[in-house]
């Protein structure tokens, strides 16, 4: 997985740093499209950065 700052990741995924921060802190669940973009920007797959928690709700990375 690539080592990026929030700003760099946001720029690569075409969103603002606030979205990346909101996903990291668990305030927001991204759309499938954004999750794919983030995974692509980080050079990994979706299931590496997102997983289901005990309540079967998507959790942030």
């Amino acid at each position, binding site marked *: 997985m690539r080592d990026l700052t929030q700003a760099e990741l946001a*720029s690569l995924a075409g969103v603002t740093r606030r979205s990346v921060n909101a996903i990291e802190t668990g305030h927001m669940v991204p759309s499938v499209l954004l999750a794919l973009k983030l995974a692509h920007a980080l050079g990994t797959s979706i299931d590496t950065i997102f997983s289901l928690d005990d309540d079967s709700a998507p959790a942030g990375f």
Partner: protein
Amino acid sequence: MPESLDSRPERYLRFSHRSLVALFIITLVVGGLCLAMALRPGDTPRWMTSLVALLPIAIAIGVVTLQRTTLRGDRWDPKSPEVQAVLQDEWRRASMDRAIRVAFFVILIAQIPIGLLVAPLPSLRAVMAMATTTLTLGMATFLALFLFFSRQGQDEQ
């Protein structure tokens, strides 16, 4: 200031945020003036009507000042990738959806007290006052909540 907090997308985000704060203030001023005119049409002070005429000039000066201080020479080009990132940002859209939902319920609930407040007025003025209050309340609630939601947890790590 760290580079990431002073980059172009961050500047566009700040510009968008400050523009919405300005719009919130304008909404309250214009809504208040219109409500005053609807409630007491003959008694509206002259300075209030002059203020309405000066508002477009004040808005133009405000926009130029905001651009100079926040964008630092950059233009708000809706086709640029940075502006697209701000406008299509998922956190911004989620905050907007939440704010719209709450503002809608606030407007619905407020109809009864507003109706009771304007009931003693003649019918035409009552309708105008009710419409003005509903629009102002709805816009102000939406903008205030959107600004609040979109800033929630922004720098938590």
